[in-house]
């Protein structure tokens, strides 16, 4: 259990850093490499206008730049500010392809091309142009604006290598405006943390403006990294620091909740179950939000450790809600079986234990038969729902969507731009798929391990319950009252559960069942 919780803690703590947080890369997970935006741009150099004219073998010759009317740039800007991004994008593309990079409007053209593409919901293409501005730096006035736009894109699924590592992680920070520099320092610190260079990371983080959101996020990243590297003892100070972060308004609500979850998990590890329960209770969910399955399961374990088996079982009822039907929680069945066993209801305990092997029969078969685990629907879903794999999946999905979106502009963009964009998206998708598959293989193995461990525990439980089931009851044995149900308070109201889940009740279910333990068999 301890190992399980610790691994959950680490993975969740890593996951908690959100999409813009590369510290979350799980140990051993391959890092995405090689999508340098420059490389990508070179690779998808514009196709020739005359598609059939090139020789059958060898690359097509790069078309010669044609002479461009300088008014084209002004027309494009008129289109852009006239809320016609489709027309603006086509003109700006033509402009950027046919003027030298020394042209005074070249960087602005790239910038507005990127903005137009983003407005057309082609975020990745826009990001590629913004990254190009950051890399080429032909116009210092455009650079901060491009970086600001890129920073906004990091809130959405994005190419982490191209934006986080190759732009923000590699920027020369001397000349940037404070806000962008803060974000860049934060990203560079994260890159340093990921490669294990805490000292360099500290140098970057120390340059963040005190009280900024980046400073808070940096503190969080540092704490998570230290937690990962902590050998045995978890310092109490670390819990306090996570607790402070959980109250930091500059962090997003998700990050604050993750900090509070970290507090709860660390206290659990220290066997301070009351403290852990208190921390779980302080995780703030939006009204009527179904919440996170992992939060409920951890709270259920905590309550179980405190002997509050009826409350723990109530939370397990929550986890049967439709919102969590697709969640991968093999532990749930184990805990249910444990609770029934503790209340000496052995048949239901056995049934709950068997439920795990029944529900995950296909996945367990796949593991035993050494099939490709990424083909197993449950494992695949579980593996791609967390951490860096989830981010890779979301980026891949966004590329697919944007690729479809691109098709709508085939006519407006013209052959050359459409061909260029299609190539750009094809390459990006191929690379995103490669990254996703690499991360998925690792994640799916982790989930399979989790399932196998739970299945093993369940087999033990079945055996133990089997023995109890056929234990002789001595004459005159009396029922013992070991586990009391909490009575209904005067200010409380009870809604009997009849298979209808209400989101506002998900954290409130209580199970009512009398213990059948007799003196001899009581725990």
């Amino acid at each position, binding site marked *: 259990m301890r190992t399980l919780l610790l691994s959950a803690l680490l993975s969740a703590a890593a996951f908690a850093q959100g999409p813009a947080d590369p510290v979350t890369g799980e140990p051993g997970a391959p890092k995405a490499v090689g999508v340098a935006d420059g490389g990508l741009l070179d690779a998808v150099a514009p196709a020739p206008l005359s598609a059939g004219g090139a020789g059958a073998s060898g690359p097509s010759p790069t078309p010669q730049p044609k002479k461009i009317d300088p008014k084209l740039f002004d027309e494009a800007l008129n289109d852009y500010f006239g809320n016609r991004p489709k027309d603006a994008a086509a003109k700006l593309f033509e402009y950027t392809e046919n003027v030298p990079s020394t042209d005074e409007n070249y960087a602005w053209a790239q910038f507005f091309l990127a903005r137009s593409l983003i407005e057309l919901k082609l975020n990745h293409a826009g990001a590629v142009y913004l990254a190009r501005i950051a890399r080429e730096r032909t116009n210092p006035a455009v650079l901060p604006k491009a970086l600001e736009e890129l920073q906004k894109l990091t809130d959405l699924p994005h190419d982490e290598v191209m934006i986080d590592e190759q732009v923000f992680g590699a920027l020369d920070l001397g000349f940037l405006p404070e806000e962008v520099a803060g974000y860049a320092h934060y990203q560079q610190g994260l890159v340093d943390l990921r490669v294990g260079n805490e000292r360099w990371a500290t140098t970057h983080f120390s340059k963040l403006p005190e009280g900024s959101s980046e400073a808070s996020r940096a503190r969080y990243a540092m704490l998570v990294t230290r937690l990962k590297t902590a050998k045995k003892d978890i310092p109490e100070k670390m819990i306090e620091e996570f607790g402070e972060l959980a109250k930091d308004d500059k962090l997003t609500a998700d990050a604050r909740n993750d900090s509070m979850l970290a507090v709860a998990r660390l206290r659990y590890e220290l066997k301070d179950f009351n403290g852990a329960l208190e921390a779980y209770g302080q995780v703030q969910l939006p009204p009527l939000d179904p919440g996170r399955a992992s939060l409920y399961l951890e709270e259920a374990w905590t309550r179980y450790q405190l002997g509050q088996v009826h409350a723990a079982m109530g939370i397990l009822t929550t986890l049967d809600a439709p919102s969590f039907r697709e969640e991968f929680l093999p532990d749930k069945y184990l805990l249910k079986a444990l609770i029934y066993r503790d209340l000496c209801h052995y048949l239901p305990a056995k049934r709950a234990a068997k439920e795990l092997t029944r529900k995950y029969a296909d996945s367990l078969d796949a593991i035993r038969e050494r099939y490709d685990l990424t083909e197993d629907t449950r494992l695949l879903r579980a593996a791609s729902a967390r951490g860096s794999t989830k981010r890779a999946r979301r980026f891949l999905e966004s590329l697919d969507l944007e690729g479809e979106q691109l098709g709508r502009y085939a006519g407006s963009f013209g052959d050359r731009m459409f061909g260029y964009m299609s190539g750009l998206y094809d390459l990006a998708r191929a690379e995103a798929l490669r990254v996703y598959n690499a991360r998925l293989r690792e994640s799916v193995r982790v989930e399979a391990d989790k399932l196998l461990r739970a299945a093993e525990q369940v087999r033990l439980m079945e055996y133990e319950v089997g023995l109890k089931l056929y234990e002789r009851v001595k004459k005159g044995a009396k029922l013992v009252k070991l586990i009391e149900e909490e009575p209904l308070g005067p200010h409380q109201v*009870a*809604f009997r559960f009849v298979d209808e889940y209400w989101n506002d009740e998900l954290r409130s279910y209580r199970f009512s069942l009398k213990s059948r333990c007799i003196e001899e068999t009581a725990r």
Partner: protein
Amino acid sequence: MHKTLVVLSLLAPTAALAQLQELENPGTVSAIQERAYRMQHELNLAVGLLPQDAFYKGLTVKGSYGFHFTDYFAAQGYFTYSYNLPTSLRQQLERDFGVLPTAFDEVQFFFGGDLMWKPLYGKLSVMNRTVIHGEVWLLLGGAGFKFTNTFRPGINIGGGGRWFISQYVSLRLDVTDYIVLPVGGGSTSFTNVLSMTLALALNFGGAE
């Protein structure tokens, strides 16, 4: 005897099935929540109708104070003033048949006190978007009525419901039937006065 055996043998499988169900899925689950809204000192300002009398319709304004002893029981006192509008029937009687206006005994105001029993408290899902809370009650009380020509006592029964807008503000709807006793003013029969009110209620206390 024979019949009893047949009945028992027929019931046996049902009992066995119930037992099996209990063995396989023992226990019950309830959502135990802190009561979201609790009342203590309640002030109401209500508007309403006295719709029953054929000769006039009363538009009422009512003020009341209620004290909630528990989440289930409360007592309230009120005063209601009625502004009466004659119906066309009454106008016709006065115009065509010379009936004197004093012949129509109208409610001018009334006051009283009620005991409230609030057995129902619950919530409703609104379009699966939000949840609203409310309660429903029955009430029983006594009242004093000032009619045009006389003053008479009465008893009343009724019911109502409340929609909680916040801990401090709620909307309540009451429907009460007053049975005015044939006491005083030479009256010889019971009179029914139906009152419907819609109130804005302010609550003080009760949050703890």
